[in-house]
């Protein structure tokens, strides 16, 4: 960029225009960075909360989970996810997904033939599946927002550390060059004028 600039007024005008654009964009990326940091913090809090809920459910289930070892019923058949609906919203240019509904297949449990513990097992498994689905979505959100944050930081740093200083330097270079050219032209013009005046006087 700095090596091949044309030292003329058009380039100077273009560079000044670019600098103006960079100066407008910099605070936008700074604000975006700040906003994304806040979003990441809130998603991280949600992820921690969900992880805690999953651990709490595991601890609670462990107190009686031994009954699930009884080889009488296939829990997989009783609890299948029918569909997962998500809703999306845009935060600072990133699409964030949230769990809207998680619908399980409505399978009737035979209360006469199945053991009593099956009811509690079905409830706990549904709760944990819902928690895991939400965690999965939040972790996906976190990955996307972190990626966007990295991009915003790259842009901010590029503007701050490269584009703006380089453009300013190039503008300065062209201004000095054009100033020198202008002074040289004036000097030449004065010299020519003096020569003409001397010729006229000699005649």
């Amino acid at each position, binding site marked *: 960029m700095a090596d091949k600039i044309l030292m003329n007024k058009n380039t100077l005008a273009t560079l000044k225009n670019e600098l103006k654009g960079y100066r407008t964009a910099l605070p936008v990326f700074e604000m975006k960075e700040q906003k994304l940091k806040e979003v990441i913090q809130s998603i991280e809090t949600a992820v921690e909360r969900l992880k805690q809920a999953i651990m709490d459910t595991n601890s609670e289930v462990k107190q009686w989970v031994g009954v699930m070892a009884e080889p009488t019923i296939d829990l997989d058949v009783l609890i299948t996810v029918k569909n*997962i609906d998500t809703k999306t919203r845009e935060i600072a240019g990133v699409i964030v997904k949230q769990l809207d509904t998680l619908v399980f297949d409505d399978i009737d449990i035979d209360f006469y033939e199945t053991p009593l513990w099956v009811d509690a097992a079905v409830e706990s498994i549904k709760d944990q599946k819902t928690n895991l689905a939400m965690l999965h979505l939040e972790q996906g959100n976190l990955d996307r927002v972190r990626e966007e944050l990295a991009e915003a930081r790259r842009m901010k740093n590029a503007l701050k550390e490269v584009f703006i200083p380089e453009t300013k330097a190039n503008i300065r270079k062209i201004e000095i060059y054009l100033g020198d050219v202008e002074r040289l032209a004036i000097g030449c013009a004065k010299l020519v004028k003096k020569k003409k005046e001397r010729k006229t006087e000699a005649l």
Partner: protein
Amino acid sequence: MIAGNLEYLMSSLPNLSFGNTEALQHEVSSIFKKYHLTSEASDNLLPILNAEAKKFLTKTQYDNFLRIQLSNIHREDFRESSNDVIAAFSIFMHNLKHELKIFRSNRQLEDAPSHPTFDSLPELSTNPLKAEVQLLKMQWNQLEALSIGHYSDVTALYIYKLKLELLLRWWSFNEDVGFKIFKETIKTEGYGG
């Protein structure tokens, strides 16, 4: 085991008591394994009991012995059995299962009575494991009550089998295995996203 009469069989079977200590499990399974001359794991004791019972029972008795199982004892044909003890236990199990069915159905309803009265069902623990043990204990006590007067006849052997099945069911409750099944069940599908 030396072949002989039913009295000999009953006296040579391991003593069963309602518990799930490792010592009890080891004691019962090691005696059964001695009969079977095997060092296999203790989780399959019923085939050994069946094999031993076959030596002492007539064909009809043995067929009945095989048919009687904890998982099907509530069936109508057992409720109408000519064996009073089997019929009584079958009716008890049918009533218990019926009350459990009502209890479980009520739990699904928001406006269900909070404490419905049942004939045989006590107030059950909210911990499913403890509730299952409560129910097993009820069934055990019922078998104990029905076993009075039956010490070395075929009914005693039927009761012994049912008691062994109750214990084997209790002993099958294993936290590590159960938690593994729980973990596998909750992560069987993708979640999109």
